[in-house]
């Protein structure tokens, strides 16, 4: 009897596996699901996803839940006082400022690269601002929508200075540390295959493990977004012993991500980002915003700061939404310089992340 049960169990599982591998199973599954939707019209899970529901839920809750990185100095990390700090974290504050007029009404959820999309899909977080690269697959298959890019990055490679590695071809036979669940893991495989270079990836889930193993000499090189390499280099034992190669493996546009299905929320996140761009374009920052608001005669500035045009209400927010962002968090240049610019350990040049006025890629649609 027992043996029969075992046999049955094993048969069942093998059956499931076989069915899973056959393509017909997938189609049948999809069909079955369609039927369910048509006949039941389900009321769905615990998190809202239709138009306007996210903002409503956030307002009712009284704070925003923002998915961030907690291991990436400069972008998202916990400082010695236990507060979240960084470039991405500041955009969470900007969203909170736009909604509540208070930048601190944010709850942060630290997420690994692997966890982030599940957290977004299941509604555990309202918005994901965690140095996340915008790709076609993620935009479509993960049920995610990517808002305006906040940071244009490229994938780089860091090696030890004394290794003598100068170009990609020098990495023949190398061990390369990389974080799993990232676009960098895929780009690395693509680029190495394209150049016919044999290498061994050493894959970890958390950034601390990746850079820890690299620092111990487990790998000849470590690959990630260049900004991340610069940031993590400061946490290595001897930062001066490491050099970032002058190679860019890929385009990495990083920005906030929201769930599909709530266009209002998507618009809000987009325009919060655009507001920080616009603030820089108009020369408005956290220090002069009150003075400008009191004296300005410029119609564009008036619309931006909520003195005319009821721009905020069109987003479902109050009209001083952009004023609050600039006042409490700052414009893009302030956010950038505070976290990554001169005076920080990273001192990253603006490069592509400059306003279009200064020859960069940041270009906000008009607020009118």
């Amino acid at each position: 009897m027992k043996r029969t049960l075992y046999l049955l169990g094993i048969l069942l599982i093998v059956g499931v596996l076989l069915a899973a591998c056959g393509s017909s199973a997938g189609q049948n599954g999809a069909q079955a699901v369609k039927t369910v939707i048509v006949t039941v019209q389900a009321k769905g899970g615990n998190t809202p996803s239709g138009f306007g529901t996210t903002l409503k839920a956030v307002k009712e809750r009284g704070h925003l839940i923002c998915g961030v990185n907690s291991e990436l100095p400069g972008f998202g990390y916990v400082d010695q006082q236990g507060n979240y700090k960084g470039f991405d974290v500041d955009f969470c504050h900007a969203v909170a400022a736009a909604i509540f007029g208070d930048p601190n009404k944010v709850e942060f959820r630290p997420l690994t690269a692997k966890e982030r999309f599940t957290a977004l899909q299941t509604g555990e977080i309202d918005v994901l601002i965690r140095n996340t690269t915008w790709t076609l697959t993620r935009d479509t298959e993960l049920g995610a929508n990517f808002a305006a890019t906040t940071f244009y990055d490229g994938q780089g490679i860091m090696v030890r200075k004394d290794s003598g590695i100068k170009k990609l071809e020098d990495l023949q036979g190398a061990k390369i540390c990389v974080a799993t669940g990232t676009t960098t893991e895929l780009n690395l495989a693509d680029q190495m295959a394209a150049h016919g270079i044999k290498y061994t990836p050493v894959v970890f889930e958390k950034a601390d493990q990746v850079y820890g193993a690299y620092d111990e000499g487990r790998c000849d090189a470590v690959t990630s977004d260049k900004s991340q390499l610069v940031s993590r280099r400061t946490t290595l034992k001897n930062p001066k012993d490491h050099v970032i190669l002058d190679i860019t493996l890929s385009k990495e546009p990083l920005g906030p991500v929201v769930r599909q299905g709530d266009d209002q929320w998507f618009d809000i996140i987009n325009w919060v980002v655009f507001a920080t761009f616009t603030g820089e374009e108009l020369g408005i920052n956290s220090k002069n915003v009150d003075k400008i608001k009191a004296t300005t005669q410029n119609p564009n500035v008036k619309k931006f700061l909520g003195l005319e045009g009821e721009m905020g209400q069109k987003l479902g927010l109050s009209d001083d939404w952009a004023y609050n962002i600039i006042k409490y968090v700052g414009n893009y240049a302030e956010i950038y310089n505070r976290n990554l610019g001169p005076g920080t350990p990273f001192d990253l040049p603006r490069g592509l992340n400059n306003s279009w006025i200064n020859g960069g890629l940041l270009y906000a649609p008009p607020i009118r």
Partner: protein
Amino acid sequence: MMKQASVPFWRDERVLAWIAQIVFLVVTVAFLWYLYHNMITALAERGLLPSFHFLKLTAGFDISQHLIPYDRSSTYGRAFIVGTLNTIEVSILGIIFATILGIIIGVMRLSTNWLINKLASLYIEIIRNVPLLVLLVFWYTGVFLQLPRLKEAKFLPGPTIVSNRGIAMPWGKPTSTWHIYLYILLVGFILAAIVWWRLTLIGKRTGRMPLVSLWSTLTFLGVAALGWIGLVIFAHQAPLAPDLPKIQGLSTVGGLELSPEFLALLSGLVFYTAAFIAEVVRAGIQSVSKGQVEAARALGLNGFQTFRLVVFPQALRVIVPPLTSQYLNLAKNSSLAVFIGFPDLYSVAGTIHNQTGRAVEVTVLMMSIYLSFSLITSAFMNWYNKKIRFVER
């Protein structure tokens, strides 16, 4: 008399029992259906219809260790198989080494020598009371990553190259005579089986059981050695050519390369599980009553014979069932590999989940694979348990 049988059905115990069973079944099925339905509708709302189509798509990522050919242009399905094989590899090796080490320590624990006894107790108490994850991280960052860098690698005889990139040891490369040698090995196996059968018959007839396993193994090894020598003399080609590792550029080439991740995972699992197996073995041996040993000694068996013929066969019946659950634990614990970067099933499935966003499908597949692996292991162990069960004659 007949009247007595006509109890109304709502007071009939058998009917009530049936009804209780049916109600329980209905409630269980309804609950599972509710969970399933809830999941499907929640997924559908987000536009994520369950489908296993993604298994046929290009994976796009590399896996450092693969027992079957794999590169970035292979499919997700193949990546799944690679991860599964890595898990099976480390589990089987882990089970073998943990059993050997566990039995040794378990027997040491019963030694009358004070030092040996205490050493074994110390080992068991320390290892059993440290979480496996801590042990794994210790082996990885505390032992294998602290080995010298490749440039200062240690050369052990062989040559075996030891560095924090892992251990590269000499290995054999099959030559043109390898397939002939496989036939010779088959012949050796058959001869060994015949020896086994004959010796067992003799043992049963005379009542003096010879060392069956020893003689069969010797037969097999003898044929293997003769075959090797024969091939070298007559075909001028040994079946395996030595494949020696050497350092070339940034890595070692040739030989058998064991990565620090693999070594750390294997060591952690073996040392951890061995502590539990040692206790299982000790309990099994102690369960054999003292009278058995005394009777055996009275019959004139020496210490080794007593252990081999009287104590161990009886202890085995007590050992095997808990041993099975230790094996299952080891296989399932191997999923902690993800913390030290070994691409086992859980780690690879995690990457696939991440790249495709198919959380439910990937989890279902992963659970099914672990479940079937455990069921197969326990089916085998149950068969073995039945085989060694005390047969009364």
